[in-house]
């Protein structure tokens, strides 16, 4: 009976110690995060005023910005349609890698002209 009592005591003390340490670590972490939090300035929270907006958009009217956006997307679509290099994942007739045209052609070149026996 004494052994059971000792065992229960040790369990309570052990688990209590572990959870106690965990709570201390938790508290330390919260404390660090509060100390380390970046200061929020009012200027960033505010929306840009008209002057700042104009400066950011290089004095362009919203319609002009919209037109540029459309032009850029159309240009990208055009490049894609033409399979331009920027859009390509396979380079046809590449000179960097062994071209199949060259490989097949040179194999034919090297075939013996003598009749096989």
């Amino acid at each position: 009976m004494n052994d059971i009592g000792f065992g229960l005591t040790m369990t309570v003390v052990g688990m209590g110690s572990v959870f106690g340490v965990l709570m201390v670590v938790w508290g330390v972490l919260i404390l660090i995060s509060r100390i380390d939090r970046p200061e929020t300035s009012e200027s960033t929270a505010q929306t840009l005023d008209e002057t700042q907006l104009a400066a950011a958009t290089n004095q362009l009217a919203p319609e002009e910005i919209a037109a540029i956006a459309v032009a850029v997307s159309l240009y990208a679509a055009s490049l894609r349609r033409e399979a331009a290099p920027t859009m390509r994942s396979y380079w046809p007739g590449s000179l960097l890698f062994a071209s199949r045209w060259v490989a097949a052609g040179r194999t034919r070149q090297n075939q013996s002209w003598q009749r096989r026996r």
Partner: protein
Amino acid sequence: MESPEEQLETLRRLRERALQGGGPERIAQQHARGKLTARERLALLLDPGSFQEIGALATSPIADEDQRVPGDGTVTGFGKINGRRVAVYAQDFTVMGGSFSAVQANKICRMQDLAIESGIPIIGLNDSGGARIQEGVRSLAAYGEVFVRNVLASGVVPQISAILGPCAGGAVYSPALTDFIIMSESTGYMFLTGPDVIKAVSGRDLSVQELGGAAVHCTRSGVAHLSAPDDRAVIELIKRLLSYLPQNNSEDPPQIMPYDRADRVETALNTLVPADERQGYDAHTLINLIFDYDSFLEIQPLFAQNAVVGFARLDGYAVGVVANQPAIMAGALDIDASDKIARFVRICDAFNIPLITFVDTPGFLPGIEQEYGGVIRHGAKIIYAYSEATVPKISVVVRKAIGGAYVAMSSKQLRCDLNFAWPSAQIAVMGAEGAVRILRREELRTAADPARLMEEFVAEYRRRYFNPYHAADLGQIDEVIEPAETRPRLIRALEILRTKVQQNPPRKHGLYPS
């Protein structure tokens, strides 16, 4: 003896003269006609700074001294289109009307020979008044030199011809021997005999555009494959067309980075085919929903519209698409549609482009005109082309696949690799009514109420044969798929078949039905 400085000065003067073409006055006239000069066209076609001219200083020894212009009315050379090497020639209408001479032919032939040896596409910008009469038979022989190289290059490297001005008489055969003809709707025309001869022979007074304009060749004759409003648009179209073609018959077409989800399931396809089989639907809707967004480039869109052919992309890979068009003539195959499909299949096969076929046709178009016109030999072209093709072939039976047309349209027996069918597929020897009239003739003749009995028999025939499952039982259809999952199924199938290699028996050449 000239000093090195003087030698360089002479060269620079000649080069400058070549750049001027026919001179400022002729260039202004060319612009007034709404056309660009040969060099302006090449500048638009090729990547900046990539053009390397060949034969810029060649002149005609037969022409008078004052009429000799370096280049002799054509600009030839090599360049790059979106980084891809191409051989180009552009006829210069400002120099003696771009008339075709022996020197022009020498330049073009030299460029063709180098292109065939190097395995790079050939692009010709045609704008010529015809053979140079002063050169007599020399200019005719010159045509022959170009024609034979067109034939030798056929199926080896892609050949694209743009008709940006006149192209008359014997000159028409060089573009006709190439793979694709793209015409300018405003300034391009091509014919064998001009309006004057036509008027003398038949009394009909036609303009050059009425006789051989883009509208004629893209809709009625089928000579041209594509058209665009002006020079610039034609050049853009050349670039787009080239993007689906490889450099030569040993290479694959360029693959672009996939931008449309491979596993995209289109539920709209489940309801695309109307329940009423007499109602059509637009094959373009089907194609646009299945293939990569905005990737379909239709070839011959205005000719034989009962068939749709063109290039598209599946997960970034170029494929050839063939489809019956149920919205026009119920998708029946006639002479023109047969020619259109057969030629397109052969182009795809020549240039290693996999073929995807969507079948919805009630059969070959019946009629005296068709029979007299040789629909048998024209229809045979489809069978020949599909049978001969060794590229990956996949077919999807969307709805009707009846009779001989079922066999012709990429059936299992024509070495199609994978045959899919939608649940709406109807694969049978003939239409329900016709079949019942033959099979139940006696019963119908003796019936008290033949109409009611006919309805019953038709319903039974449909239930038993007008579905894809009977064909799937026999292995004619590999899988019946849900329409919505067509795109992912095709992409996965192509992934497997991409490395397919198949050989035909060795022979000099087959005898294509013509």
